[in-house]
């Protein structure tokens, strides 16, 4: 990280005294946000702090009730996202909007197609300019590829290319790394650095502290719809950000849990091999000969990059994927694989990675979401359920006014706890968690870690996957590293290091060091 001097940087975009009200709720309360020319302007805040609302206003997708926008000192009125684009402001949303059924070049020009004589689409010109934009980002791709076949990282690059081609001078990135693997994130950071050099102003929203500190030039912290802190890179520290964001000091929560040695094994996985996805040209096994044991009350982390087989592993254990060979046993009892109900009956339950897609029932209440997987009699008793759910909600600190409200009224962190409550209602022996705190703010993250440690102390065995080194280190008593579908290393808690994890997870390094030296804790295979 080189020292950056900031000689009186110039404000390019300013949102002055912005207030945005929803019925009964003030999302933004007199917020003033400044973006400085050719810098990375970071906006930080917990979920619900108002970051996304502010960004939507800057991108013309929403209008402020009060306050004014200024672009280079001149008042700016945005009615639609098109107005914003015309003024050189583009946004790449967290949930990428790519039209997955269209080609890359069609995505880049969607809604602003280049035409011959204003009638027929000029595909050649679109391809050519798409190629140029992608080359500019140093990410050349075949622009005729269907976007749905791209990785999330590449889709993001496509959206950035779209913004570039529109001649955007201000690029807003909303939680850009939340779906990216470490290596994809690294390459995104390179792209951001390039753009900055090319004169683009970046507004970057995230709550991943380490990348913020690494990237940002200017920091603005939002809390409950108000700006609670502004700093330049020189003044911003991790502790300062956490304190500003959450309104409290960073807890000593990160303290290590004692490892549970020589307890009886609860889960025994041996020789687990999973077929690769159908139609995959690589036709490589998604998982190859994975074996491990999990003890009672142990928290086992599974670390790996995107595509290493993390999700495949926990989904296979939960019965969502058929396995090619291998066995899974709970307390010595073989379980029926490839069946969710088989896994549930054996006491193994999965908390999925993507709670919107695989977890929540958006139409249903908090109560119904919690009890969905629980055993029931032939007739449901709402009163009985209510009692159990309220008790569990209190234990897990689910901030719900009423368990009969729709689950969508909750914040991300609380929704995650609702899923955790659902898992616990099945009284599992083994809790499988795929990215336990994805899209969850810092405060709720620490809370969830605390809850998981408590549960483990009471004897629950937990397997969680993570693509975040920080999370793996904070939570795991032992870590398995997956690389290209194989266990490439195993670390006990005291052997953990950023470098070790990253090296074991990266294909080229792992290939060299595999089997020979990189298994310090002695695998169970």
């Amino acid at each position, binding site marked *: 990280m080189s020292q950056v001097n900031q000689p009186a940087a110039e404000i390019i975009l300013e949102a002055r005294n912005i207030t945005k*009200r*929803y*019925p*009964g*709720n*003030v*999302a933004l*309360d007199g917020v003033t946000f400044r973006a400085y020319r050719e810098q990375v302007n970071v906006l930080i805040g917990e979920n*619900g702090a108002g970051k996304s609302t502010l960004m939507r206003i800057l991108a013309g997708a929403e209008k402020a009730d009060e306050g004014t926008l200024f672009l280079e000192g001149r008042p700016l009125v945005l009615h639609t996202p098109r107005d914003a684009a015309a003024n050189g402001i583009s946004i790449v949303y967290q949930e990428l909007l790519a039209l997955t059924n269209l080609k890359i070049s069609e995505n880049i020009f969607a809604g602003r197609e280049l035409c011959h004589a204003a009638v027929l689409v000029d595909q050649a010109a679109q391809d050519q300019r798409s190629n140029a934009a992608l080359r500019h980002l140093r990410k050349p791709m075949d622009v005729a590829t269907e976007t749905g076949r791209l990785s999330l990282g590449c889709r993001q690059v496509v959206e950035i290319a779209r913004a570039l081609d529109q001649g955007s001078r201000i690029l807003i990135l909303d939680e850009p790394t939340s779906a990216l693997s470490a290596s994809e994130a690294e390459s995104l950071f390179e792209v951001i650095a390039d753009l900055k050099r090319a004169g683009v102003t970046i507004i970057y929203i995230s709550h991943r502290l380490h990348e913020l500190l690494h990237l940002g030039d200017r920091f603005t912290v939002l*809390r*409950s*719809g*108000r700006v609670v802190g502004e700093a330049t890179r020189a003044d911003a520290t991790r502790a300062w950000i956490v304190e500003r964001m959450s*309104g409290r000091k960073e807890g000593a929560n990160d303290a290590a849990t004692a490892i549970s040695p020589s307890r009886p094994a609860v889960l025994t996985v041996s020789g687990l091999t999973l077929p690769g996805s159908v139609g995959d040209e690589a036709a490589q096994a998604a998982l190859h000969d994975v074996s491990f044991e999990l003890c009672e009350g142990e928290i086992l982390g599974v670390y790996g990059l995107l595509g290493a087989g993390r999700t495949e592993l926990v989904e296979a254990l*939960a019965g*969502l994927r058929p396995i090619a060979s291998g066995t899974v046993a709970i307390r010595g009892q073989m379980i029926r694989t490839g069946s*969710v*109900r088989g896994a*549930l009956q054996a006491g193994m339950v*999965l908390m*999925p990675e993507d709670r919107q*897609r*695989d*977890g*929540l*029932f*958006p*139409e*249903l209440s908090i109560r*119904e979401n919690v009890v*969905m*997987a629980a055993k*029931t009699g*032939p*007739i*449901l008793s709402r009163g009985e359920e209510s009692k159990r759910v309220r008790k569990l909600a209190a234990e897990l*600190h*689910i*901030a*719900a*006014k*009423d368990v009969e*409200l*729709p689950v*969508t*009224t*909750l*914040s991300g962190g*609380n929704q995650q706890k609702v899923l955790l409550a*659902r898992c616990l209602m099945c009284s599992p022996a083994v809790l499988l968690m795929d990215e336990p705190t994805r899209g969850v703010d810092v*405060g709720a993250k620490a809370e969830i870690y605390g809850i998981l440690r408590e549960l483990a102390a009471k004897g629950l065995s937990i397997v969680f996957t993570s693509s975040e080194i920080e999370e793996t280190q904070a939570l795991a008593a032992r870590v398995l590293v997956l690389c290209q579908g194989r266990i490439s290393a195993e670390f006990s808690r005291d052997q953990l290091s950023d470098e070790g994890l990253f090296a074991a997870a990266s294909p080229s390094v792992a290939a060299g060091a595999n089997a020979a030296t990189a298994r310090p804790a002695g695998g169970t295979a």
Partner: protein
Amino acid sequence: MNSVTSTRPRANRFALASARVVLLLLRARAILVLLLLLVLFSALAPEFLKANNLSILTKHVAIAALLAVGMTFVVLTGGIDLSVGSIAGLGGMVAGYLLTQGISLGGATHYPPVVIVILLTICACLLVGALNGWLVAKAGVAPFIATLGTLYIARGAALLISNGKTFPNLGGAASRGNAGFPAFGQSFLLHVPTPVWMMVALFAVAWVVATKTPFGRHVYAIGGNERAARLAGIRVAQVKLATYVFSAFCAALVGLIIAAQLEAAHPATGESFELNAIAAVVLGGTSLMGGRGSVTGSLIGAFVIGVLADGLVMLGVSEFWQIVIKGVVIVLAVGLDQLQTRLQARILPYLTTAGTEEGRS
């Protein structure tokens, strides 16, 4: 951090309260429309509220309501069943065949008793329902296409049974031991027509199943988020299959009732009934995307359509205008549904902050 939010809510309390009232009215719109129609028609047509007319009206409604209740479960899972009209037609023809042609076994013709006729008819219809369910749940065919296919298959089968002719005189004969079938559609219990009792009983069972049993909850869960339902250990395929079989059961009852009322089975019976059933379901507030709606709503929806049709006839409105008016009502209903969704989305942020602020402070 509470100081930030504590000053605002009071100012917005009135707006919020009125939004809630509007939302409540929107949610109850089906019953409000029904009451409005009843008042309107009884004012304009004095005959409307006479017991005789109401009896005819409920008999009409019962047929639509039976189909709508069955359809509700399918729609709640995110599916649709276009085949119910054809299944009703097929059911009538199967019953007609058994009653008038009997079963040829070893050279002799046997005439099964009425109870057996009814059971065999229902079984035949359930087979079509099972085919629907299998196509959708196991073979992964889109519900619209699968049931469009069975719509034609069942209708074709109904035509084939009689070569397109009508089976008349379903009264049976005491000498054959199969008399009494018309009672299925024509008899009264406590001065109320039997089909109406069937509607009441079926509705009661469906209501309990939808609201009080794990099966009902699973239906809502699958419509809300199928992937999550699978992960929660719900037998998605079986539940879906069951909804199509139940829908076919309801269609079978309708086919039997109509055949019994007319004492004749015509292969074209039930054409476009599926559209009336879907209209009733939608009027009742069930989302065609699945996951949201109720059996009660569908029952009310069926009444709205029935009352509208009956009332317009009494007022002497032309048949062609009746069709237009029905369409307008359906479009309005869907429009109001959108309004409700939007209003709910507007109110949710308030509920959210109230919850989280209390929890965090």
